[in-house]
């Protein structure tokens, strides 16, 4: 059993917008796309899929993220669950991984660029706090889960080795 799993965490605010339960927060952004942006975004997401996994491993605080293009290709819904507060790291994203994030969000109308001092406000202004949300493991961060997986594998390897 994971530590703290038997406790119930109150759901609180994750900062300017979004909910937080335990170590995990939710973020949903709905924003209009540029003309023709939907197709370009689909193409970029397909192309960057492999590189994206690498970058997300570097960030190591994002549980999942989804890009949903809707309303006849005019709008984007971006939803994610992540550890901690996103705005803590927005400046690091701007200096360390600007290309990837800009690649993803440049098709959103008026996106100022992740390096911009206005990026934080832009995201907060397009963020909609969830009305309901459930997390199966509110106290486990991405790093906790990865470590748990490593330990489970090592433990099974040990059992396998000792029975052979």
């Amino acid at each position: 059993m994971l530590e703290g799993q038997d406790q119930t965490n109150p759901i609180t605010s994750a900062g300017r917008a979004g909910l937080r339960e335990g170590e995990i927060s939710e973020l949903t952004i709905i924003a209009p796309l540029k003309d023709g942006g939907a197709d370009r975004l689909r193409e970029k997401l397909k192309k960057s899929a492999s590189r994206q996994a690498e970058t997300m491993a570097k960030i190591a605080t994002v549980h999942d993220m989804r890009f949903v293009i809707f309303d006849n290709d005019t709008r984007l819904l971006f939803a994610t669950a992540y550890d901690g507060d996103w705005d803590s790291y927005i400046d690091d994203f701007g200096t360390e991984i600007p290309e990837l994030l800009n690649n993803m969000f440049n098709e959103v109308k008026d996106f100022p660029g992740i390096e911009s001092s206005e990026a934080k406000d832009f995201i907060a202004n397009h963020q909609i706090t969830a009305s309901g949300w459930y997390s199966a493991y509110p106290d486990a961060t991405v790093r906790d889960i990865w470590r748990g997986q490593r330990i489970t594998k090592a433990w099974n390897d040990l059992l396998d080795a000792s029975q052979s």
Partner: protein
Amino acid sequence: MNVIGTETEELNYDDIQGIVLQERPTPYVGTYILLSIDHQQDGKVMLKRLLDEVTSAGQWSNPHEGAWVNVGFTYQGLQKLGIPQESLNSFDLEFREGMAARAAKLGDVNESSPEHWEDPLGTDKVDVALALFAPTKEALLQAEEAARRIHCELNGVSVVYQLDVGMNPDGRTHLGFMDGISNPRIEGNHVLNAVGQEAEIKAGEFLFGHLNESGTITQGPQPAELGHNGSYLSFRKLHMRVAAFRRYLREHADNREEEELLAAKMVGRWPSGAPLSLAPEADDPALGEDVSRRNAFTYGDDHKGLKCPVSSHIRRAFPRNSLQGSVVNVNIHRLLRRSTMYGPILPKGVMEDDGQDRGLIFAGICSSLSRQFEFIKTDWLNGGNFAGMSTEKDPITGKNEGEGMFTIPDKPIRHRMKEIPSFSITKGGEYFFVPSMTALRWMAELDQHISKEELTC
């Protein structure tokens, strides 16, 4: 985005307050005085008088009265001085809200929550801070005299708080460690630079209007006359539970040597200041005294923290190269620390609390409260996830409340300390704006209706 070239600019020492660029010579004595402004007109007279008393970095080696006087303003202090609303709006959100409003984020809860803070810290009575430092008690008295001149005969300006600070007789913190060893080196600051292996940090990380580590110019408060060469200062009064710290060590170690090792593992340095990274087995006082060596290290050969635990205080406060390969750019999360001690020392060997208030006044200078001070406090000291340590907190300053955990990597398996109490209790704090000399003049000249007679007394 405002990108300029990479050429190094020389800083204007005569415009920047001394506390930002200069380290205090040792030994020193000091006092913090907090003022409340009840009448704007008197506040403005005080501003004009301040111009003659505040010590710039350029005057540091030969200060007025032989002492160093520096000044900061809270958001409401600026409001009460009649700074135009447009300018007020250009300050960062964290500064405008004030430290007390940020308590939940900073972990200042329960015993450390603002409702328990020492009056008037965290209230609307704190408008101006004067930081006075001097090499001798006599010079400090002269500086206090200067501070009195700043507000004398002004009924609308009153002293609401004063706290004497300084070095402990042994030059160490109340917990018994050398402090103030690691500070970033500022590019373009040739007056004084901390010796070490640390790369120079762009001035914009600490001063508004300069190139920063993100390659942009740090936008300060507007107009430029007000913001340029100014900084934010995070001021915190942290009560240290020295007896509780000693008892924890005693109860969790078998002998004196083990106690000293456990304390060093928690701090990341030995009492002398020698870092565990360079002296993993035992204290090395010669290393602790050697300014050219005691800060010249990285964690490159100690990824797992077998020498210096990943969760130790100094490795959290400044992870150096520990976070390489992650998304974190350590250079955008630095602070200039100007902390100092207050209260009587607890005599050696005393294990019970004597009821005296002792601790440190933390003073952290930066150009972004959210990205620097609040980030370090929230993500690195009160969190552990950044280093794969889950919810483990800083063993020395973390909000541990009797439930704290501290992992000491070792072979074949790690040790884990449990039930760590809070050794550091927040007794109050404020965010101050530390303006340049130009900004002080700009603030003072907003209103020209002050007669010469009012300026002296």
